[in-house]
């Protein structure tokens, strides 16, 4: 990476450094296209199974949660499409391993904030997985069941923004979980807690609009909903766009700020033994 190497020596991190990191993140994941293709296949199979369950539910309760059957099917394939880019099942960052191996000391000494450095790489990853793992399930879903399309360019643009914010929120959350390894040593327990919270409260398993009573209210206010449910609602046109984007931007800012604070704390905690 000669270009990046030269930029290390520059005084402050520039936009082009982050752009490079995005590109490298993209290319790194593009190497494993076989794994992405297999993941897309699995996402598609599960999408088909979930679509049938949702169709049965919406046949029994037409109009449930403000969706019709076509909306529910669309929701199902959209959420399967988010699994890759939003990394809904967790992981995707190398921080936890690097904390355990001690390499994190090197990362903390880099001339760019760790949060932004990792975010850039993660955006590259998300960009590649969007192409490799989001488009195939959506296309198959459209062919098998038919899905609705957003009406108008404005909704498309809002959806693109909402999708990007969803990726940033997902990153913010995973970054905090990964960095917590500095304090917990074993990252697996927290990874499972995160998995449970993310899959259930994001809307991946079931749309949050059908969660009963207070559970639905709470679930829709939590950051996980901003990863899956909210972008899907923007796509379907069932959400008030400025308010939802504001909601997502707020969570993105909160999680990134928390991540930056944790990084500062981690910097003080890491002891480099040399060697």
């Amino acid at each position, binding site marked *: 990476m000669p270009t990046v190497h030269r930029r290390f020596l520059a005084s402050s991190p520039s936009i082009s450094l982050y752009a490079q990191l995005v590109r490298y993140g993209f290319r790194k994941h593009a190497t494993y296209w*076989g*794994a992405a293709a*297999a*993941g897309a*296949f*699995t996402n598609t*199979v*599960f999408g*088909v*199974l979930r679509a*049938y*369950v949702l*169709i*049965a*539910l919406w046949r*029994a*309760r037409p109009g*449930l949660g403000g969706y019709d059957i076509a909306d529910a099917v669309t929701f199902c394939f959209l959420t399967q499409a988010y699994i890759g880019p939003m990394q809904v099942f967790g992981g995707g960052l190398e921080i936890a391993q690097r904390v355990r191996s001690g390499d994190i000391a090197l990362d903390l000494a880099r001339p760019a904030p760790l949060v932004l450095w990792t975010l850039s790489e993660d955006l590259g990853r998300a960009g590649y997985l969007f192409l490799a793992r989001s488009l195939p399930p959506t296309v198959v879903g459209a062919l098998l069941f038919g899905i609705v399309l957003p009406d108008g360019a404005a909704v498309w643009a809002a959806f693109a923004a909402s999708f990007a914010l969803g990726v940033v929120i997902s990153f913010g959350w995973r970054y905090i979980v990964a960095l917590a390894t500095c304090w917990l040593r*074993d990252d*697996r*327990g927290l990874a*499972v*807690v995160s*998995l*449970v919270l993310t*899959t*259930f409260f994001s809307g991946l*398993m*079931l749309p949050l609009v*059908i*969660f*009963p009573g207070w*559970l639905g209210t709470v679930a829709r206010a939590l950051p996980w909903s901003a990863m899956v449910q909210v972008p899907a609602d923007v796509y379907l046109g069932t959400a008030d766009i400025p308010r939802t984007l504001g909601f997502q931007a707020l969570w993105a800012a909160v999680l990134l700020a928390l991540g930056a604070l944790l990084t500062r704390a981690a910097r003080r905690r890491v002891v480099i033994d040399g060697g």
Partner: protein
Amino acid sequence: MRVYLLLIWTWTRAAARYPASFALMTAAGTVTAGLDVAVIWVVFSNTTTLGGFDVSEVMFLYGAGGLAFSIADLLFSNADRVGQHIRAGTLDAMLVRPVGTFVQVTADRFTPHRAGRVLQAAIVLGVALARLDVPGSRLWMIPVMVVCGIVIFASIWALGGALQFLLTDSSEVANAFTYGGATLGQYPLSVYGAELVRGVTYVLPLAFVNWQPGLYVLDRADPLGLPYALRFLSPVAAAALAVAAALAWRAGVRRYRSTGS
């Protein structure tokens, strides 16, 4: 068989060396699996029947299928590591040992904390049976269907493992059928399309894990009108698939050529 038990006991003892981690991972598995129950609960908080079945019946299908799947997952799912063994070269070491490769591959890195899911499925099945009031004359089918289900899932894992002798990176594809099969069986098959149900009845016999025998236990007519006799054919389906899997595995091992490095 004795070697298999010895090997998994060794790995269990290894895992027990870290009791806190072991307890945590077991609990984590139970909780993750419990999410499916939460999903079913949310579905039935919106409707009283799904595909013509009520919540207790769906819980019964989920519990019986989940029990078979989780036991197979505990004992045999490591068969999908064949690709890793081929890439790392560890398969060569297994081939020269005087024990079958299938036994070695499935017992290697045996993960006892997967038992958490078995427990979770057993609890759901127990609760469902308590609420269903199944007549005693039909209960014999439950152990039969669980055993057949274990054989069916184990065979799919073995088939997936055999495929990896051809395509080293194909473990995800097998996952789509094993984990996908388990997901499929969480709901009555009447919610799925007729072609899909025919496929999992006559091609890949996932319908014989909990659906066809489950219809007998629940004493329900087949919503898709398939022959009544099918509900007793789980052992036949399981045996046929096991034979196919054994042949495929053997062909895979025969075909394998070490890179020699």
